[in-house]
């Protein structure tokens, strides 16, 4: 696999997130090492998606910092982007491209060296290989989600950030996802995910976001 050092750490210190002039969470911290998984829990609006976007680098923290092996992530955005896979609410599938073309594009964009063998293996794993030449517009919601998840395997990256990955998935596919995550962790990968449905990850840590909700006074503080 591509993990350099045997064990890496991904950590957050005093992280705060401001969305639309509101402090969503503050003083958030966690520490994740290779092979670990982290569940994000919390009610709607507690900032699970915001935290994942923040970890991915789509959002900039209002305060605090993210670090990889102690090095601030903000110092090298591209290196951080190479380390992560982000699965958000949208599946980013072009209706006129075939399943394989869709996957290949994202795999090569993430890693220009990514070979077709990996793409094939990824599609086979998620049960889409027989649909490889079907255009994206014909896929069901569950198939689209599985295609999106195939990106995780088509180009390697140590950190997976999954925002409700089980949405639209049937039971069998959720089991596949669990198995894929387990293998990823066994190879030294990290996973951070939020979910409403049950995804079973053995000995995964949990992060309750409502614990980092700002105190009422602080919430409006951003502008006062």
């Amino acid at each position, binding site marked *: 696999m591509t993990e350099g050092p045997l064990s890496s750490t991904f950590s957050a210190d005093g992280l705060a997130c401001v969305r639309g002039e509101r402090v969503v969470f503050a003083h958030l911290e966690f520490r994740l090492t290779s092979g670990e998984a982290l569940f994000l829990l919390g009610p709607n609006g507690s900032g699970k998606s915001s935290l994942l976007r923040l970890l991915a680098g789509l959002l900039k923290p209002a305060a605090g910092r993210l670090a990889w092996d102690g090095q601030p992530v903000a110092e090298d955005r591209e290196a951080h982007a190479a380390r992560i896979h982000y699965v958000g609410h949208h599946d980013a599938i072009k209706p006129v*491209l075939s399943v394989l073309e869709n996957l290949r594009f994202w795999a090569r964009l993430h890693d220009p060296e990514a070979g077709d063998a990996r793409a094939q293996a990824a599609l086979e794993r998620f049960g889409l290989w027989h649909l490889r030449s079907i255009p994206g517009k014909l896929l069901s919601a569950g198939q689209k989600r599985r295609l999106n998840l195939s990106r995780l395997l088509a180009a390697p990256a140590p950190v997976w950030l999954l925002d409700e990955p089980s949405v639209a998935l049937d039971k069998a596919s959720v089991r596949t996802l669990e198995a894929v995550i387990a293998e990823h962790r066994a190879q030294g990968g990290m996973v951070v995910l939020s979910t409403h449905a049950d995804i079973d990850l053995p000995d995964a840590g949990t992060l309750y976001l409502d614990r980092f909700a700002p105190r009422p006074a602080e919430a409006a503080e951003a502008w006062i």
Partner: protein
Amino acid sequence: MNRLAEIIRRDLRLALRQGSDSVMVVTFFVLTVVLFPFGLGPEANLLERTSAGVLWVTALLASMLSLDRLFLADYEDGSLELLALTPTALELLVIGKVAAHWLTTGLPLIVAAPVLAVLLHMNADGFATLLFTMLLGTPTLSLIGAMGAALVLGARRGGVLLSLLVLPLYVPVLIFGVGAIDAAVQGLPAKAQLLLLGGMLVAALPLAPWAAAAALRQALE
């Protein structure tokens, strides 16, 4: 660089399969130019004198037609997030998308322009310069337009807003594009205008993708 080629290839493939954009742009261009003789009268002299301006103004409007969709589809289906998370400069990907946009809209305009120039009785001395100005000018339009398209992502009435933002910034390209052709038609050297057009392209090449990438990151926050 591989990634640049990859995104250009994807956008071209998308344009090819979804079709219509290039065809629409060229059709608009041709149709609008053809309207002018009806508005101005078929008198060859008048048409000849206004041909450079008519062609450039119309080309400028046509190239704006498909701009608002440049990033919109990627924004709506989540592709833009993943593009922003690609381990490369977002500016590079913007250049790729602009290149694909220019190949599918700018280039067809350039191909159609000489035919329309004939319809407008443009002096044959101006043809080469017309092609040259469009070759130098339309990429600049695409670049400036990309910045506008990135800025209006998620805005209400983005399409109309886009033209308000972008058209004033198009003025210099228009002035020098038409200026060069007019000079050539009158037998004067057009080198200065062409150099200025080239200069604008060279200036827009780093600045516009930078601004567009900044706007895209804003849109994704």
